[in-house]
Structures are given as C-alpha cells and as structure tokens.
C-alpha cells in the first residue's frame, strides 16, 4: 500500500514538473508578453495542481491536506489577477505608471 | 561535506559577491541590492552556527535563530530607509547617481556610496 502511494506521488510530481518545465521553456522562447503569460498559466494551474495532488497522500492529517489545497487555490487567484494586470499593461504601453 | 559546511561556504561566496557589487556598481539601487546580498550571507553564517548547535531535541540552537528573525526585519527597515533616501535624491537632482561631477556648486554632496 505504501509503495502504491509513493508511486502515485512520484508520478504526479513528475507530471507537474513536466508542466513547470513546459511553462519555463515557453517563458524563455515565446515572442511577446501575452504568449509568455499563456505559457506561465500552465505552470501555475496544472503544474502546481499536480504537485499538490501528488503530495496529498503524504500528509499526516486532513487539515494539512486542506492547507495544501488552499495554497494552490490562493496561487490560482493571485496569478489570475496578476496575469490580467500584466496583459492589460502590455496592451497599452503608453498608460504605464 | 556536511550541509552546514556547504552552506557556510555558500555564505562566504555571497559575502564576496555582495562586496564586489557594492564597490563596483555605480547606481544606488544596485548598491542596496548588493548590500542585502552581503547581509544574507552573514545571516547564513549565523544559521550555520545555529544548526551546529542542535541539541536537546531541537533542530537548531534557538537563540541565534531568534536573533536572525530580528536581523531580517531590521534589514528590511534599513533597506526601506535607504530606498527612501535614494528616491529623495532622485527627486531633488533628477538623476540617481552618487557622483560629484555634476553637482551644483552650491551644494556639494559626499562621494561615498553604500548604505547610511
């Protein structure tokens, strides 16, 4: 049983890492701000979500697992709002503060 | 090489890099960044000393760790004061530079860089 849980953790975290790498490659290689933001959302949503999913069976209490999910939800909220702001500023360079 | 020696040598490298950046970079903002780098190197040395004092069931000696928390907060306050000074210099002179060549003759400024 423990082996199955550890295998699930490793597979999920590797999958999450793949999305993180994909997001980073996109950040470095895409031509402009809007496409780079698009690549970064993959890292935030899927990458972090899969890492959190993989870590959930390793926690000792339900409360710790809920805290991990709360972290993921907060990152989603913050990155969504910040992506909106960056995209809006990128579209109107003359309105930059 | 144990973790403490590794991080200790990393701290030494950070102190060296911070000092180099402090002396070489002409902009005050970069000097503040390098000063923070040096400060973080010293904090790492303190954390290494705390880790080597692990005993009585604790992961590290709590006294240096508590002093580290104080140090990080005070370093932020010092950085805030330094940034405020730098922005005031920018507002007054229109350029963010510590050089004396372009100063008006009526108000010569000191030529030293770094933190207050």
């Amino acid at each position: 049983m423990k082996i199955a849980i550890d295998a699930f953790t490793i597979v999920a975290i590797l999958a999450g890492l793949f999305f993180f790498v994909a997001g980073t490659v996109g950040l470095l290689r895409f031509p402009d701000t809007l496409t780079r933001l698009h690549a970064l959302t993959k890292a935030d949503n899927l990458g972090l979500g899969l890492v959190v999913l993989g870590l959930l069976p390793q926690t000792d209490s339900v409360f710790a697992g809920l805290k991990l999910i709360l972290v993921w939800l907060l990152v989603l909220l913050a990155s969504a709002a910040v992506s909106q702001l960056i995209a809006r500023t990128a579209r109107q360079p003359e309105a930059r503060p | 090489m144990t973790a403490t020696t590794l991080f200790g040598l990393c701290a030494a490298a950070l102190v060296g890099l911070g000092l180099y950046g402090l002396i070489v970079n002409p902009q005050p903002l970069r000097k503040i960044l390098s000063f923070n780098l040096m400060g973080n190197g010293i904090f790492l040395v303190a954390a290494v000393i705390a880790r080597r004092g692990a005993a009585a069931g604790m992961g590290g000696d709590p006294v240096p760790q508590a002093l580290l928390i104080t140090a990080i907060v005070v370093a932020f306050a010092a950085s805030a004061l330094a940034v405020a000074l730098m922005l005031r210099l920018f507002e007054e002179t229109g350029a963010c530079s510590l050089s004396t060549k372009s100063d008006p003759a009526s108000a010569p400024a000191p030529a030293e860089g770094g933190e207050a």
Partner: protein
Amino acid sequence: MSTTTHIGLVLLLLGLALWITVARNSFAAVAGFIAYGLLLTLAWLALSAIDVALTEAAIGAGLTGALLIGAASRLRDVEASAWAERPGATTRALAALISTVAAAGVAVCILKLPDPGPTLAPEAARHLAATGVGNPITAVLMSFRAMDTLLEATVLLIGLIGVWSLAPDRVWGGRPGLTPKTDPNGALAYLARVLPPIGIVIGIYIFWVGADHPGGKFQGSTVLAAMGLLVMMSGLRDVPAVRSRWLRAALIAGPATFIAVGAAGAFTSGAFLAYPEDFAKPFIVVIEAALLPSLAVTLVLLLSGPPRRPEPFP
C-alpha cells in the same frame, strides 16, 4: 533534504547572486533578487530554521522585493546614464581582490568552527516550561531575549521616522505615494476585495499558532501588512495621512504596551521585562497582541515611503 538537493540549492543561489551583481537592467536584477529570496527560504529550511524561513519568505523576499520593484520602476528612465559611470578596470580588479579576501576570511572562519559547536539549546529547553509557550524561538524572542524584541520594535519606529523626515517641508504631514488610479471594476480591485479576508485570517492564524509551532507575530504582521498594501494599491482606500492621530496611536501602541509590561515587571518581579513565575503566558500574549497591529502598520508605512501629497488641515 539530501546532499544533492543542497548542492543544487547552493548552485542556484550563487548563480542568482551573480546575476544580481552583473545584470545590466536594474529591474531584471530586482526580479532575480525576489527569486533569490525565495530560494534562500529553502536554504533556511535545509538548516532546520523554520521560523527564519517563514520570516525570509514574508519580509526578506516579499516586502523587500515589493520595495525594490517600486524603486526600480520609478528609476527606469535614468538607468542608462547611471550605467555610464562604471569604474575602470583597475578599480574592478581591486574590488575583486578585496571581495575574494573577504570571502576567504569568512570561509576560513566557517571551516575552523569548533566541533562540537557551543549551544544554548539545552538551557532553552530547560527553562521552556516556565515561559508557558511551546515554540522555543517564541520563548527566546518574548521571554529570554525580550529586550532585543523591544529594541527591534523601537528601531522599526525610528526607521519610519527617518523615512518620514525625507518629505519636503510643504507636504509634511501629508499622504505617502501618488494619488492612486482607481478602477473599481478592475482585476486589482477584485483581488483587493477577495484576498484580504483570507489574508487576515491567515495572518492572525500564523501569529496565534506561533506560541507552540513555527510562526509568530513578525510573519503574521507581514501578511496583514501585505493585505493593507493591496487595498491601498488598488485604490479602494487611500493611504492614511502621516498627520492623523489614530495612525500615530496605532504605531506606538505596540512598543508602549511592551514598555508598560516591562515596567510592571520591574515592580512586581524585580527586573525590567521579568514575568511572574508560572504566569508568563498571559503577559506574552498581551504584548504580542498589541505588537501585531503596530508592526503591520509600521511595515505598511515603511513601504509607502515619505509623504508626497499635501494634506490640508480639517
């Protein structure tokens, strides 16, 4: 953590530090500094300093990063001219020499540290029960070395007065920062409405749980300060004027309570900041509860800078 993780972490830290030192664009250097601060959090975790890791993530990476981003964005236009003042090759070679000597000195000190290292952990563990808190770091901060914490709170206040003193005379007593451009339906205003309730709960939780687990008032007050800054940056509330009385009262309430409890200790228990036997925890809770909002307001104001808009007398 295993040794390979440690080596990877150290290489990343040194790589980022090198980037911060040599990057041309100051904004890129500040972005590198924020990433460096977050990696430093992992370094503290590797050295089993969990409270320090929390403080570094909150203040070292978060607040200092926000401060430096604000400064870098205001200095964006004068970048190129300042870069032209770089010192010549001789100065740079001498600086490299001095830096190598300094780094070698620190490295020699690290390698010559006594083995086994001297430690105060057994002493702290022995007297931990008398303080009533379970987290040894909170016990050190609030009981064994309470004087240092009091002086730290005072230093923050003095730093804030130093920042305020940089205001031009005509705006003294006014509001820090520029008039915010408010967009009540924008993404930032939405975030500033949704996140602060969650942030306040998290901040108070981190503060409360610091009595027995890693946490404490510095980390908690930073989260509260971040929520306050978010509300001000989005324009939902304006930055308070430096002249306002309630602001100044909020700033000194924490250190004043600390000094009052210390003086009471001088009368009842024989020394400044001494707590009565077996009754220490209520005093510690009172001091921390008073310091939490004061610290949050101090951090918000340190980040906002000196007053820049005049505030007319009512």
